[in-house]
Each structure stands twice: as structure tokens, then as C-alpha cells.
């Protein structure tokens, strides 16, 4: 099934695109998607930031599935459907 990813800033640079279409096996969970991002882009992300991509996605970023905020860790087990869109955003604290 196809999932669309929408990313910004550092992630956009590492993945080299603002929008990415990912192919995942049916019934993949959010966790599977994040692990697959770690697999494909983890070393590029580490080069840029000295941080683990998976850990950053789970701890630092805000994840929105079809425009609704995901709660981590509960929603890591949410099962994705064909055509879902995941937006990954940095929170903004001020300044």
C-alpha cells in the first residue's frame, strides 16, 4: 500500500524531497513506517544531526496522520491504510 509522507527542514534535506510516497506491506503499523524511515534515512539524519532518526521521530517530532495528531507511544500500533498521509513537523517553542 502507498503512504504519503510530508516533511520539512532537516528531514526534507535528508530525504531530498518535501513529499515522498512510501510502499509498505498491508497492515503495517506507524511503528513499522518509522522503522523503515530509520532504515532508509537514519545514517543521513545522523550525519546532519548526530541523533538517531527513530528516536527523534518518537521523542522530538510531532506526527499527524491524516491531519490528526498521533499520541506516542500509544499510536505506534495504529494500523495504516492505503492512501494515508503522515506529516512530520518540529514543534515550535517560541522566538
Amino acid at each position: 500500500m502507498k503512504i504519503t509522507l510530508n516533511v520539512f527542514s532537516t528531514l526534507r534535506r535528508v530525504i531530498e524531497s518535501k513529499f515522498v510516497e512510501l510502499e509498505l506491506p498491508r497492515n503495517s503499523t506507524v511503528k513499522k513506517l518509522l522503522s523503515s524511515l530509520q532504515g532508509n534515512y537514519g545514517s543521513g539524519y545522523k550525519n546532519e544531526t548526530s541523533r538517531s532518526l527513530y528516536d527523534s521521530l518518537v521523542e522530538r517530532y510531532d506526527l499527524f496522520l491524516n491531519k490528526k495528531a498521533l499520541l506516542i507511544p500509544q499510536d505506534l500500533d495504529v494500523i495504516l491504510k492505503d492512501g494515508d498521509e503522515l506529516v512530520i513537523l518540529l514543534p515550535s517553542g517560541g522566538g
Partner: protein
Amino acid sequence: MYGSKGKLLRVNLTKNEVTKEDLDEKIVKTFLGGRGLGAYVLYRELKPGVDPLGPENKLIFATGPVVGAPFAGNARYVVMGKSPLTGGWGEASAAGWFGPQLKFAGFDAIIVEGKAEKPVYLLVNDGEAEIRDANHLWGKIIGEVQDKIREEVNNDKLCVASIGPGGENLVRYACIISDLHRAAGRCGLGAIMGSKKLKSIAVHGTEGVKVHDSGKLRELAKIAVKEAMDGWGDGLHKNGTDRILEDLSGSGRLPTKNFQLTSFSGDQKITGETMTDKILVNRWHCYACPVGCIRIVKAEQPYIVDPAYGGPEYETAASFGSMCLNDNLVSIAKANELCNKFTIDTISAGVSIAFAMECYEKGLIDEDDVDVDLSWGNYETIVKLIEKIAFRNGIGDLLAEGVMRAAEKLGGDARKYAMHIKGMELPMHEPRGKKGVGLSYATSNRGACHLQTIHDDTYEKKKDLVPEIGLDTALSRYDTSESKARMVKIGQDLWGLYDCMIVCKFTPHPAGIKLKTLNGIFNAITDWSFSEKDLMAVGERAFNLCRVFNVREGVTRMDDTVPERFSEPVSETVSQGQTFTQKTLSKMLDYYYRCRGWDEKTGIPTRETLERLNLGWVAKDLK
């Protein structure tokens, strides 16, 4: 006393006199410094109804007990006075070296009163102060002024805070700038300085800050550095405050086209990472801080941009960028440079220009009446307008008044496009996407301000909560419940505490340094054994005193509003459908006033609340 110097400098420009005064330890223990000390002095010494641009207004430059002691985030100062923009509490803070140098010179604060007959500057050097002639400096941009003063005093280490033509011409949002690019930006405090004919204050000192337990401080300062860099520090170092622009746009929360939109197609061109790639030449550090969030930029085309004047922060990139539909990064950097040279606030200037562009679009400003093309996105116009505003030329004279007064002059629907609260232009955070910030905009004592409370994003996750001070509930950024109102109040008290100590908001919670560490640092410096509760009470006390200052000037619940524009739903991305209506705000105000211990109908602090905060002595002034 440890930390504080126990000394104030009072400068009477009418009498041309400088006097040194003792600062009582009791007052410092109650208010610390910064906002608290300034509010205490101004509340007592200013009568209500004073003309902000008249000689009876006062201007205070305040440090705090921890300023100048060696730890990350200790390098700020706060300037205060009755604002020419809002007619109420005026306050702005800045970074760099001025605050520490004032402490090293032997003073906690400077109180400026009266008005000089001719332009003057104040020199403060190792315990002594002198008012000097500045006739030859009046009209000059701040770089020239700094050079000349250092040369004539023969001290190239002098830290100089100045006004440029913006302050001299009483632009209502003129600012005060030190180190050529650190701005006490908002509320028009530069115009107060201009009205007093005070061009600059130059400070230098060699006396360190007395610390109670320097071993303990050293130990905690090391921990603080690690906590700060693990938090926001690393990201701020790399790409500055503007690193958030692209993600704000992506989340439908970037002020765009005068707040008509919330996402900008040109976001990648003006975001922090692009600034780093294209025009960044250096990163600048405040005294004792490893973060280095400050940008130094240089460019040649289409404008020559001088790195001596720093570089754009996020607020500036958005106010001259997305707000005006401008995606030309160098023009934003040029506008920033000119705002610094001429000393006008970049946020208010950008919002004023966006206002003009919308009025032009809607036919309220005729193209025959102006000699600039006010079409959206015209970056040449933006750059031209900075100078026109600073020198009050043509339409610059109208825009120099700020959007509230400009809209009154234009009449018709103009006030719908004037994005201000209590007279101060809105900064670059969307209330529809950060509803706690929306409530804080409405209740901020200096008018619309994004630096009063912790932003909603930072307590969406359980792991970022601080339950010991009541930040105990993870809430969505869009939540408007009683819990959210309570969190806003607690955040205002915490960040208000920072404005009294004074510490930078980019190192302590939520930026990284834990409250426990900061508490330890405070006690290691001062020897006062304050608990976290004691510290939070300082922040709450100062916030309430500033509120009472405003109430005395006539502010009530009616003034705690947000612009009508936010009743329109967001159309972009994950914030789609979100609104921030007067009805929502009204409900949140009910919760908030209850939390604060203020009268729900009027928004006035109750006698009971004032007495609990050791402010019972102001209760007699309130009906």
C-alpha cells in the same frame, strides 16, 4: 549582598544631575530585578495619565541578581517605561553585553527621568557616571555613534545602547539597540529615549559579580550547559530562531499575508536552514553562553547587507517575509539591517507594512497618494519603507504611528486589517494554532506578545511536563479548556520570573536547563535559599503589579481581546478549520481570571490576591 550590587543610578536630564542610590536588599528579595524592580519603581514614581513622550515619563534599564554571573543565559537587561504605543506598561529586553557590563560597572539599574535641553549621552564607567554632550551624535546611525563614543572616551570596550533616527523622530515603535544588533525592541521605548533627547548610554566596568558559592555555581553551570545544548541549544546554534519558520508554515501556523493565510509557498526560501546556506557568515554569542543563537549575515545582491548589524531572527523573517508575501531572503536581511541602523522594531514595522499592503489591496490607500508600489510581495517597497518610517516621510509618517492609529486615520474598514492588541502589533505566532499563546496575547501587560508564556507545543508531550509547578497536563495546542488557561497562567509566572532574575528564555525550561538546576544556580549566586515556590511567586508578583499599573491607566477585561480575523477558520494543513473566536477567548478569560485571582467581570486583581503577593499596598488605588 551577593548577586545584586545594591546600587541604582538616577539620572535627571532636566537638572543635568546623576545620583547614586542604595537599593535595599528587601526590595531585591521581593522583586529581584528586571520587570519586578522596574514595575516597583514605575508604579510608585509615575502618576497615572502621564504623557509617555513627556518629561514626566521615566525609562529604566534594569539588570537582575544573576546577570553577569558565569552561567549560560545570564546576559540580558530589561528596559521599561510607559509605552507611547499602548499608553500602558512598556517593557522590552535585549541580550549581549550591556547587562553584564552595567553590573560590572557597579549598578543594578539606571533610572532616567526628565528631559535634556539638548542631545546628551550617559557614560557609566567603573562606579562613576557622567552626562555628556551628544549634539554631534544626533541624527547619526548607531554604528557611527558607537565608534565616536568609544573614540572620544578612549575605551573600545564600552558597550553602547543607542537610538537612531527612529527614536529621534519618535516613531511609536522605535527601539533601543546595543552591540549594534541586540534590540530592546518592542513598545516604543526608543521613542521615550528620543523624547528625552538621550542618544546613548555607554557602560563599562571591571568589577565582577559577587557570588556566594562559586564552587557550587561552577558545578551547576556545567550541568546547565549540557542541559541547554541537549534542549534547544543545538538547533539554535545551527540555524537560529528562524529554524522554525518552515515547520510553522507546514503546520498551518505561519502568519502570512497580514494573517489572512497561515502557510507560505515561499517558506523554504526564507527559513533558517536556507539563511545558513546562503548568507550566514558567523554565529554570535552573548557573554558566557555556548549557544550562539545570534546570526551574522552578509550579502551583495540585490542589496549589500552589512554583517556589523547582525542578521534576522524568526520574527523578522516572518514579519518582512510571509506577512508581506515576500520570499526574497536578502531583502529581509536588508530590512533587518536598516531597522537596526535606524532603531525601529522589526515586528511592528513588518506588521505595519503588511497592513499598508492590505489597505492598498482593499482600496483604502490610493496609488496616487503614495510614491511606492504597495503590492503584496514587492520587496523593494519593504526596504524603501523602513527608511520612510524612520524619517516619517510620505506614507512613512502614517505607518510610524503603528497600525492602531494608522487605521483610525484611514477610517472605514482599515481597523479590520490593523493586527494589534492594546495598540501593539501582533508577533509571528498564530493564535488559531497555539491557543494558549492566543490567551497570552490577550492578557499580556505590554500588548500582543509571544514571550509571556510557554508555547502550547512544549507541553503536548507528557515527558516535557513540570508537575512540581503545576504544568502537569499534556494538552493539544488547539485545546481551550480550563487546564489550558491554568497552564498559560503558570507559564506566564515562570517566564515572568525569568524577566526578573533575568535569564534568557533560550536556555532554561522549556529550552533545556531544568528548573531544579536554575534554582540551584540562583541560590549558589545569592545565598538566599529560595525554593521553586518562592521563585514562582516573584514571577506572579511582577505580572500582577504590571497588571495593576495598566488598570490604573484604565485597562479592563474589555481590552483583553484578539483581532476579529481569528474568527475565520484556517484553511491550511493540520490546523485546518481552527478558529480563535471572541467567544472562545471569553470562556478562557473566565477560567484564567479565576486562576489568577482577578475579578471575573473586570479583570482587576482582587485585594485578597494582592495581599497574598505582598502587594496589599497597591490595593488602595483600585476601586
